[in-house]
C-alpha cells in the first residue's frame, strides 16, 4: 500500500496556521486586512489578555451572505482571485484564502455578518475548525469576527507566546501599521475595555500620525510628493532631529501594503546621509505606488516582503523623492530652555534640547507649496521674504558699519556682500540666483532665508552669534564651514581625476564578492578606478580616483563590496564611500573651533552656507545652527504673562 496520503482538510489548515497565525498580532492583521478588503470605513479592534483570551474585529464593510459566510472557512476560498494569473496583479490585501480557515482551526471562532442587501444576518461558529454551526442572527451591516482562546487545541504553540503584555505590544505595532496604511479609515484599538489608540479616518495621513505618535512629531514632518510615470512616492519624512536609534519608526507601504525590513529603506536612509550621525535612523511614513504588475507579493504567507521586477527604479524613486523633500526643508533645530535647568544654559544635554521645530514649513497636508498657516512662524519661505528684506535694506545692516568695508574684501575671497543684493524676495523670484559681487562666480543661493541672519560676533571663538527673523541664532563655525567644503568637494567630483599606481593594489576577492565586483565594474570605472584583468581571486587595481587616494583604496573597496552585499545599489554604495572621503577632507579643510574670525568673515560664512544645499547640518549629521526664538527669549525674561 502506498504511504502517501492526501492530508485531510483539518491537518492542512493546522499546517497553514503554523505559517499564517503565529500570535494574536497575526490574527489581528489578517482580520483587519479582510475588513479593509471588504471596504470598511471604520474598524474597531478589541482584545483581552493580549489577544490570547479574545480578539474581536468589527467592521462596517460589505459583509457576507449565507453562502459566503460558510465558504470563507474553507481552505483557499477567496473572493479575491479567480485564476492563477490574477496573482500577478493584486490590488487587495488578502488573496490566499488561507487566513480564516487557519485561524478557525486553532481557536473558537464566531462570525456575525450581514451584507446591505439582506435583512437577516448570519452567525457562523466553530471550535477548532470543526462542528460548523450556521444560523440566522440579527446584526448591523458589516462583519464582526471574534476569535477566542487562541491555540486552545495546540498547547505546544501556546508555549511560544510571550506574556499578555508583550503580545499587546505586538498587536499595537500591527495596529499602528494598518492604521497608517489607511488614513481614510477610522481605526480604534481597545484592550480590556479601554481605548489604547485611534485614528480619525479623515483621510489625512498627518492626522493619523498625529493621533498615533503625538503632535510634536507630526509638526516636524515634511511632506513628500513625487511622481514619475506610474511611480508615485507620497507621505511624510521627519526632520533629522527626530531620528531614532533604531528603525522601528520607519513605515513603508507599497501599493497600500505594509512592507517590513525591506531593502527599500536603504535608499531613504541614503537620502538622509550626512544629515544624521551614524547609528541614527530617520523616521518616515512613505507610500510607494507602482504598477501592480511590477510587484510580486506572493513571496511569504505573511506578505511582509515584496519583490519588484523594477527594484532599481523603485529605489531610485524613493531616493530622489526623499532627497528633494529634504532639500526643501529648513532644518534648524530651535531650542527652548527647559524649566528645570535655567542656569545650565547652553549645554544641549541639559535642557537645551531640540524641541518642536518652529522653523520649517508648517506641514500642510494638501502640499500647497508651504503657504504659511502659522503666523507665529516667520521661518516659512514667504514670510521670510519680508523679514529678510527688512534686514537687508532697512536698519538691519546699519549695525555692520565696520563690516561694510570688510565685506568688500571678503567679496574677493569668494564671498558676496549681501547688501548689494536687491532683496531676498526678488532674488527668490528670479530663481534665487544671487550674484552680488563681480567676482562671485555665480554661486546659487539655495537658502535665501539664511541671508537674513546678521552676525553680531563670535562666542568662545567657536560659535557665531547672529540676529535673525526668529530671534537669536548660534552657528557652529566649524560645522558650518565643513558643510560648505563638503558640498564644494561633491561638486568637484565632476572634474574627474585618476591616480594611476606604480604597484597595482592586489585585492583578494571571495567568489561572491567577485560576482558583485563584476556586476559593478562599470560604476567603479565610471568613478575613476582602473583595473587589470581579474586573475583567479585576485583583483589588480591599477588606478584609483584621486579623491579616494591610494592608501585608503583597499578599505574603500571592502566597504563598497560590503554595502553591495548589504543590499545597497552600486551607485549609492559608491557615493557613500566617496562622501566619507569628502567629509574627512572637508573636516580637515574647514576652519576650526577657536579660530578667531572677523565680522566680514562671519558674514561670508553665512553667505556660503546659504549657497549650500543642506546648510543645516554638517556632513557628520550634527546641526550647524540652533535658534532661540523671540517667544522663548520673552518667556525667559518673564516678559510674557505666563
Amino acid at each position, binding site marked *: 500500500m502506498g504511504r502517501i496520503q492526501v492530508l485531510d482538510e483539518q491537518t492542512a489548515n493546522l499546517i497553514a496556521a503554523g505559517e499564517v497565525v503565529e500570535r494574536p498580532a497575526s490574527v489581528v492583521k489578517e482580520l483587519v486586512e479582510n475588513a479593509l478588503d471588504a471596504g470598511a470605513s471604520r474598524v474597531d479592534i478589541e482584545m483581552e489578555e493580549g489577544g490570547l483570551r479574545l480578539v474581536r474585529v468589527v467592521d462596517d464593510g460589505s459583509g457576507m451572505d449565507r453562502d459566503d459566510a460558510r465558504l470563507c472557512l474553507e481552505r483557499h476560498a477567496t473572493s479575491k482571485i479567480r485564476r492563477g494569473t490574477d496573482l500577478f496583479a493584486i490590488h487587495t490585501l488578502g488573496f490566499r484564502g488561507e487566513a480564516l480557515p487557519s485561524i478557525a482551526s486553532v481557536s473558537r471562532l464566531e462570525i456575525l455578518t450581514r451584507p446591505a442587501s439582506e435583512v437577516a444576518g448570519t452567525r457562523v461558529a466553530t471550535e477548532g475548525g470543526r462542528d460548523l454551526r450556521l444560523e440566522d442572527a440579527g446584526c448591523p451591516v458589516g462583519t464582526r469576527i471574534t476569535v477566542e482562546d487562541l491555540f486552545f487545541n495546540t498547547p505546544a504553540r501556546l508555549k511560544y507566546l510571550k506574556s499578555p503584555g508583550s503580545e499587546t505590544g505586538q498587536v499595537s505595532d500591527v495596529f499602528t501599521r494598518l492604521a497608517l496604511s489607511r488614513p481614510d479609515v477610522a481605526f480604534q484599538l481597545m484592550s480590556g475595555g479601554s481605548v489604547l489608540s485611534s485614528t480619525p479616518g479623515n483621510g489625512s495621513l498627518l492626522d493619523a500620525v498625529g493621533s498615533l505618535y503625538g503632535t510634536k512629531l507630526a509638526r516636524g514632518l515634511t511632506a513628500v510628493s513625487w511622481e514619475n510615470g506610474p511611480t508615485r512616492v507620497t507621505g511624510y519624512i521627519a526632520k533629522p532631529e527626530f531620528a531614532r536609534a533604531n528603525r522601528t519608526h520607519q513605515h513603508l507601504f507599497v501599493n497600500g501594503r505594509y512592507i517590513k525590513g525591506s531593502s527599500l529603506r536603504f535608499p531613504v536612509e541614503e537620502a538622509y546621509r550626512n544629515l544624521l550621525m551614524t547609528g541614527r535612523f530617520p523616521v518616515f511614513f512613505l507610500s510607494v505606488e507602482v504598477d501592480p504588475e511590477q510587484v510580486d507579493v506572493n513571496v511569504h504567507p505573511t506578505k511582509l516582503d515584496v519583490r519588484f521586477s523594477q527594484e532599481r527604479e523603485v529605489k531610485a524613486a524613493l531616493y530622489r523623492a526623499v532627497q528633494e523633500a529634504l532639500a526643501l526643508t529648513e532644518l534648524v533645530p530651535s531650542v527652548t530652555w527647559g524649566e528645570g535647568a535655567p542656569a545650565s544654559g547652553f549645554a544641549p544635554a541639559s535642557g537645551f534640547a531640540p524641541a518642536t521645530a518652529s522653523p520649517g514649513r508648517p506641514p500642510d497636508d494638501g502640499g500647497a507649496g508651504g503657504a504659511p498657516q502659522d503666523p507665529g512662524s516667520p521661518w516659512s519661505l514667504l514670510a521670510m521674504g519680508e523679514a529678510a528684506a527688512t534686514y537687508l535694506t532697512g536698519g538691519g545692516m546699519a549695525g555692520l558699519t565696520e563690516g561694510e568695508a570688510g565685506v568688500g574684501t571678503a567679496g574677493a575671497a*569668494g564671498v558676496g556682500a549681501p547688501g548689494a543684493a536687491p532683496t531676498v524676495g526678488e532674488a527668490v523670484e528670479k530663481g534665487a540666483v544671487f550674484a552680488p559681487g563681480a567676482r562671485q*562666480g555665480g*554661486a546659487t543661493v539655495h537658502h535665501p532665508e539664511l541671508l537674513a541672519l546678521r552676525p553680531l560676533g563670535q562666542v568662545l571663538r567657536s560659535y557665531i552669534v547672529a540676529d535673525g527673523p526668529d530671534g537669536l541664532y548660534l552657528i557652529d563655525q566649524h560645522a558650518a564651514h565643513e558643510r560648505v*567644503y563638503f558640498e*564644494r*568637494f561633491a*561638486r*568637484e567630483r565632476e*572634474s*574627474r*581625476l*585618476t*591616480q*594611476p*599606481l*606604480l*604597484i597595482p*593594489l592586489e585585492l583578494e576577492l571571495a567568489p561572491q564578492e567577485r560576482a558583485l565586483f563584476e556586476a559593478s565594474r562599470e560604476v567603479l570605472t565610471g568613478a*575613476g578606478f582602473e583595473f587589470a584583468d581579474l586573475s583567479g581571486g585576485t583583483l589588480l587595481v591599477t*588606478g584609483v580616483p*584621486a*579623491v579616494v587616494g*591610494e*592608501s585608503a583604496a*583597499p*578599505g574603500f573597496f571592502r566597504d563598497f563590496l560590503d554595502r553591495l552585499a548589504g543590499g545597497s545599489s552600486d551607485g549609492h554604495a559608491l557615493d557613500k564611500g566617496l562622501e566619507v572621503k569628502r567629509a574627512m577632507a572637508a573636516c580637515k*579643510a574647514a576652519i576650526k573651533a577657536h579660530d578667531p574670525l572677523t565680522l566680514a568673515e562671519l558674514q561670508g560664512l553665512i553667505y556660503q552656507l546659504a549657497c549650500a544645499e543642506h546648510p543645516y547640518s554638517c556632513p557628520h549629521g550634527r546641526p550647524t545652527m540652533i535658534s532661540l526664538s523671540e517667544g522663548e527669549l520673552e518667556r525667559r525674561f518673564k516678559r510674557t504673562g505666563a
Partner: protein
Amino acid sequence: MKFTASQADLSYGLQTVAKAVSTKNTLPILSGILIKGDGNRLNLTATDLEIGIECMVSAQVAEEGSIVLPARYLTEIVRKIPAAAVEVEVDPRNYTAVLRWDRSQYTIHGFSPEQFPFLPRATQDSGNKLPQNVLRNMIRQTAFAVSHDETRPILTGAQMTLRDGHCHLLATDGVRIAYRRTALPESPQGEQSSSLVLPGRTLSELSRLLAANDEDTVGISVTPTQAFFDLGDVRLVSRLLEGQYPDVLRLVPQSYSTSLTLSAQQLHDACERASLIARDGSGAIKLGIDPERVTITSSTPEVGQVYEEVAASVQGDPLEIGLNPRFLMDGLKALDSDQLLFEFSGNRTPSRMKPQDRDDFLYVVLPIVVW
C-alpha cells in the same frame, strides 16, 4: 644602586631613549626606562620591542645596580629639576627610587630590572660607516615617500641596500619613488651585499638622533632580522620589516621623450602658489610643455584659475600632463640642487626628476590622469 648625575646629562639621556618607550599598555615594564649604573656612567635603555634605544651618560656611581623606572614620570620630573645635580638612590628590595636635590625628595615606584627585555647587540662590527649628517640627509630625502598604508606593510619601510661600497636608500608609496645613494667612505674588505627594509618610524627616530655635522660617524651593522646603528654614546636597534620589497626601479621608464631643464626653486614656488588655489579640490595641476613655453594651469570652479609660465629649456615632444603639486613639491625639496632635469615619457607613465649634474638622487612620480 646610588648615583649622582648632572641634571642636564640625565635629562638629555632620558629624553633620548624615551622615544623608544612603548605607548601600548600591554607590557607594563616596557613603559619604563632601564637604568644601569656601573663605573662612572649610566646606561639608559628603552624599547617597545620594535625599536630599542640605549644612551650612555656620565655619572658618579657610588653603588652599582639597576632599576626600571616609569618613563613618563621620570623624564618629566628630571626635566623640571631646578638644581644642577640630582642624587638617585634605589632600594633594590622594593624597586623604589628616591630622587634628591636641594631640599626636595621625590620617591618613584619602579619595576624589577630582571623583567626588562634584553636588547640584542650586533654580533660583529660590519665596518660600514657614514658621517652622521650624510645618513641624516639621505633619510630626509627619501623617508617622506614611505607608505602609510598598513595593508601593504612592506611599503611602510624604506629599503636600505649596502652594496659595491655604496649605501642606497629607497622609499615608495606606490605612487612615487624617492631614491638616494652615497658612497661608503670606509668600505670594509670582502664586504657582502645586504638589503634590508627599515620601518618608517625607525628612520624618523634615527634621523632625530643623528647629528647635523660630518665629524661624528654612524656605524651600521645588520643581522637577518635587525639593524644596529651605533652613534657613539647612543645606540639604536631596530627590527626589520619582513618580506620582499618590490623592485620598483625596474618599473621606471628608461627612455624619455620629453625633457625639461629648469630651476627647482622656481618650479617649487610656482607649485606652491598654484596649490593655494588647487588645494581645495584633489589638487591637480596641469603642466603644459611645448618648445615655446612651460605652463602651469589649474582651475577650481569655486575659486578661480591658475596660469603661470616657468622658464625652462625644453627638449623633445610637446606634452600636457596632470600632476599632484604636493608630490612635486616633496620631490623638489628633496632634490638639494637648483638645476633640475625633469623627464617624461607620456602623460600616463612615471616621470622622473633628478639634479642636472648628479646621479645620486632620483625622484619618480606618477601623473594624475584627467578624464
